[in-house]
């Protein structure tokens, strides 16, 4: 409405800016965003700054409690485990294993899933119907069961876990992308573009994509937390990262036998993982709220 804009001095923020502003207004999500950034930072450079190697065994200091307890030692900030390995260093390495890998796996799934989803969303008829049935079938299998089966084919181990989680996440992205594309396709502005003679690819790239990118980012935040849970769960069940690995789930599973004597071994990795999951989920929530508020105002 250019001719009606009597208030030239007023600048209207763009949609992304608006969502970002809304997001920052919510202090909780903002703090959680900072925590996520911190975890990413630790995941990237953590292995270079950790005080000990995660596998270094200090046989003189076995099962040391965290340093704030009277029996603790300040050299081992969060205590040591049954083989004398520094828990703090192991947690830092675990960040890059559990969280770092989740980020990467979810991103891989995003790229593959969104491209497939775009193909499926834009296609019609028998091809899309076959694809849908396939997707429904895969989505109906509980994700952990699917991951477990894939691990059973490939054999246990962290590398195979990554493949399993990737394969589990892809259908979810495909499904999400397909739904949002279908929703957008129903709207009038797409019809308008089509009447103007835009090609399918042009519509996808210029009309649909900018409008669905936020839901995809949202799905990404969900996928990261799902990937973390799956990787850790497989590690916990002894099907993913093997015993002794600093992966958080594996650390928790190692702690079960010692839970009578060294409860910190069960509590510390749990808290770290909980904090990480909580911040990722809260950022996701904040994002969803920001988007919803923007579409309301």
């Amino acid at each position, binding site marked *: 409405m250019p001719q*009606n804009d*009597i*208030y030239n001095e*007023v600048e209207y923020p763009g949609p992304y800016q608006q969502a970002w502003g809304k997001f920052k207004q919510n202090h909780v999500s903002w703090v959680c965003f900072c925590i996520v950034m911190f975890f990413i930072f630790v995941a990237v450079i953590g292995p270079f700054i950790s005080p000990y190697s995660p596998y270094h065994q200090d046989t003189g200091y076995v099962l040391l409690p965290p340093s704030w307890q009277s029996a603790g030692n300040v050299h081992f900030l969060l205590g040591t485990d049954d083989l004398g390995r520094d828990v703090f260093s192991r947690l830092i390495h675990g960040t890059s294993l559990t969280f770092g890998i989740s980020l990467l796996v979810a991103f891989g799934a995003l790229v593959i899933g969104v491209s497939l989803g775009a193909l499926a969303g834009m296609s019609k008829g028998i091809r899309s119907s076959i694809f849908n049935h396939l997707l429904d079938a895969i989505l109906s299998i509980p994700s952990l069961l699917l991951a477990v089966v894939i691990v059973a084919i490939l054999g246990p181990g962290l590398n195979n876990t990554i493949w399993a989680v990737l394969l589990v996440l892809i259908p979810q992205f495909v499904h999400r992308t397909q739904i949002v594309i279908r929703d957008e396709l129903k709207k009038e502005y797409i019809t308008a573009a089509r009447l103007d003679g835009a090609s399918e690819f042009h519509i996808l790239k210029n009309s649909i994509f900018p409008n669905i990118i936020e839901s995809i980012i949202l799905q990404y935040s969900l996928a990261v937390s799902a990937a973390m849970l799956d990787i850790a769960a497989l590690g916990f069940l002894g099907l993913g990262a093997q015993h002794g690995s600093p992966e958080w789930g594996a650390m928790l599973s190692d702690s079960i036998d010692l839970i009578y004597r060294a409860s910190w071994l069960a509590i510390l990795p749990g808290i770290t993982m909980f904090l990480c999951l909580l911040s990722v989920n809260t950022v996701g929530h904040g994002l969803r709220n920001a988007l919803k508020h923007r579409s309301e105002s």
Partner: protein
Amino acid sequence: MLLDVRNLTVKLNNDTLDVNAIDKMSLSMRDGSIHGLVGETGSGKSLFAKALTGTLSEKWTVQADRMFWQGEDLLKLSEEKRRQIINRDMAMIFQEPSRSLDPTVTIGEQINEVIPKSEFQGSIWSRRQERLQIAKNLLIKVGIKHYQQCYESYPHELSEGLCQKVMIAMAIIRSPKLLIADEPTDAMESTTKIQIMRLLQKLNTQKNMSVLLITHDLESVINYAQEMTLLYSGQSVESGSVRDLLKRPYHPYTENLFTSIPKFNTDTRPKSRLQTLPGSTPPLQHLPIGCRLGPRCPRAQKECVVTPKSVKLKGHLFSCHHPINLD
């Protein structure tokens, strides 16, 4: 006097915004009349209805010098007492009636649940029969011929006009003194529109039910209402009987509004422009101070940055520093 509201101010308290969406508006209604409340979109018509019935959310605060309902000040009563009075005496119908009915419950059940207990005469055992009878009588009363079918339908299976009739039926069951109709015929075909308006008029004359007709459709106000109040951006512009206002408007906005109605009988040249004010209604964030019509008013002068007081003259109430047609 049925309803007498003086200097009603409704304030929006938001973290980014703090404005008077309705600014010192006044409105009074006679018993048994149809009163039109006219204004553009966003001028605060619906807000007034909500403030009156007390259904505003917590973001809004309502202040007024007085809000008399049959001599009782509603704002001074306790929340509960106020609810009781409103439930007893007022009823409301909305635009988009199909969205104002619960989509998952049949029409019959929805009518049943608003039938007050006092309507029943027989014993508890004949309730079912009685309910059915009352509901059917109601549907007939509002002019629905296929009442049986309507009774068993879900709202989405009925047309907008039928839904509005059902809404009216549900509104009149408690025989309220005042029916607030918030754009009741918005987005309806003109034949349906006329049916609904006739129905309201009939209820008004037969049951002596006052109607507050909130609309932006000037023509239906001119045709059906006896009195009207004009709103612009939350400020009352002018009010009085429709006939007087038509004959001699004092406020420049009123005159402009009436001349903007296309007339088919006069010698309007083909493809000539309708007369309008320059510019558009200001958004809530950018309300001008003083008279909010100021920037668009052809007669605006220096004094217009001060909010004009309402003046009563020959039965008209208007707020303008430089009225027209005064002589």
